[in-house]
């Protein structure tokens, strides 16, 4: 088993072309992918970060191009711990679409999901169409947990963005853990073994492993 304290699912949303994939690739692989080629066969990227002394695994999911015709599946949002909503500071329409994205998040995501607003492509200097203040105001008014401007091209704030996500989720999770602990201690008589969600792949893998180990 790999040793990590928590694994968090982080999903990115926002209009096509705002640089979601670039942000993920810059953070996880340190590269800025040239061109606009869609990444075929890649579901999510994983990177382990440290929060204090804890190893935290971030599983970062991309939209798989389904934002192009606004057809992101609801199930994409379902089990996300954090949602990073990205717009392009040099593209006003990508900012104007934010309320629509917020609507989707509110409809399908968990109520307590961590919401982060990101204005990407700050490297574009002169071409900026959305001032930082406007982005920050929007984030405040709509109760985002965090707002940040980034550039996947020159790496501005990219690491900070995901480190913030990891730190905040870890802190939240620790509080929940304590509460659950408290709750378990309080409830003495309940059987806790059944009723939890089941991931099919876990079982498939353990079966696979047990087959291998037998030989």
């Amino acid at each position: 088993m790999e040793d990590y304290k928590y694994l968090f699912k982080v999903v990115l949303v926002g209009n096509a072309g705002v640089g979601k994939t670039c942000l993920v690739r810059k953070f996880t692989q340190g590269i800025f992918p040239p061109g606009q080629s869609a990444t075929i066969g890649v579901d999510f990227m994983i990177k382990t970060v440290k929060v204090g002394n804890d190893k935290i695994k971030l599983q970062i999911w991309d939209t798989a191009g389904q934002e192009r015709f606004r057809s992101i599946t609801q199930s994409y949002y379902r089990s996300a711990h954090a949602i990073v909503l990205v717009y392009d500071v040099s593209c006003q329409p990508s900012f104007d679409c934010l309320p629509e994205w917020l609507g989707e998040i509110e409809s399908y995501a968990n109520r307590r999901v961590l919401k982060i607003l990101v204005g990407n492509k700050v490297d574009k200097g002169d071409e900026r169409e959305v001032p930082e203040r406007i982005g920050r105001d929007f984030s405040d008014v709509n109760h985002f947990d965090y707002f940040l401007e980034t550039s996947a091209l020159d790496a501005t704030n990219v690491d900070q963005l995901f480190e913030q996500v990891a730190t905040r989720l870890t802190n939240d999770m620790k509080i929940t853990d304590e509460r659950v602990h408290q709750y378990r201690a309080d409830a003495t008589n309940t059987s806790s073994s059944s009723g939890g969600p089941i991931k099919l792949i876990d079982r498939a893998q353990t079966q696979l492993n047990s087959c291998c180990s037998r030989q």
Partner: protein
Amino acid sequence: MEEKLPEYADVVVLGTGLPEALLAAACGRAGLSVLHLDRNQYYGGDWSSFTMTMIHEAAENKDCKLSSEEVSKISSTFLKNNEKLIELGDRKVVDDMDIKWIPREMDEVPMQEKLKALGQMRKFSIDLLPKMLLSKGDMVRTLCDSQVSMYAEFKLVDRQLCPSECEKTKKILLNPVPVSKGEIFQSEALTMLEKRNLMKFITFCTLWNGKTKSEQFIVMDGTGDRPFAEFLEMMGVSKKLQEFIIHTIGILDSQPTTASGMKACCEFMNSVGCYGPSPFLFPIYGCGELSQCFCRLAAVFGSIYCLGRPIQALVEEDGKIVAVIADNQRINCRHVIMSSRYVPEDIPLQSSQKFDRIVYATDKPLKKDEKEAMTLVNLAAFRPDSEVSRVVEAGGYMSTAPNGHFLVHATGTQEGSSNVESLVERLFEENEISPYWKMSFTMNSLKFDSSQMGGVSNIVVAPPVDPSIHYANVIDEVLLHFSFSFIFDIF
């Protein structure tokens, strides 16, 4: 900033129901370029799940029929020499939809307003077609093989109830059905001797399951097509135990022959204990998730998704579909896969089967228990003539309703005189449950023969909705279509 649809795709898929989604994902994985379209704004078509707000919107019918002006305009704009336009159909799979809120005296504020005020309308996930997954069944295997299992979470269907009529009160009693070994030994429904005999029978099934087809055939001794009960009798299984076995597997097959009964027994027993005591799993947030998950997989492999646009016609040349006209654009293609909804009007049906679906929203469970559960009730005993009569209750526990609320799904085929609706309402009345919302409709399982597509060879019609409890038929047919049409292995 409306983006244009691509001008070419190897495969154009019409409809985002589960079978189409499976086929799209398989094509995407096989390296074909896929354009996946749906007339609806939402994923899943007749396999979808809706929030309380969405279902009322989705129930409104929109006419998709083209006017003669549109047809001639499309023809003159898009058709080349020798090409023929084939209008797409808009066949009704979900029909006679009726939705209503039921006022109740006990509510000071009407439930609709209360749920709205609490922001809980979105917490419903109302399935058009709730089905279960057998833990060792084809669907679970397909989910694991394709790694789509990564996108969804499941819970056990942890309570199976068997109804019987109380001789004194004439009320329907809901008795728990023991399924795991532990439950069977604790159960009071069987005597110690019967339990021992049942264990013997289970061992027999396990052995039988390990045999080859021809060996199995010899064991059945020519009784394969005879009723299962006769075979059990021959095996020396007591009357009471026969009933118990036939009832338990009855949820898979209500009128088993020896061959189908043995198959169902093995499927059932294989699945018991796989993820827990129950052989069945259900997706959290409802079955609509599954088609979305397969669509996500297709998208990850480059398929392009566009929902909510008009899908108008096909273009045929020399017995082949060469293009699809959608959203007033021409998309050239090599293959077309479609759900039965889109099949052109003049293509003859191979067969069809109607079944009733009724969904109730309640705030009291069918049967109180220590903890909340997902419940399955097989009502076959009360409708012996019908192929399918079952009730599924899934609530806050399955994230298909707000906490403390339940969706009660009744599904029944239409043979015989009684209907599943009156049975469920009797259950409600006897248990003093008053639903505050009701939706009823019929589903139409429309089957087409892909080789009878009006002389066109490259159309695949995806398997239709069906009333069975699990996904075996869907997976079977999808596999068949896929290997036949594309000569690849699925996933």
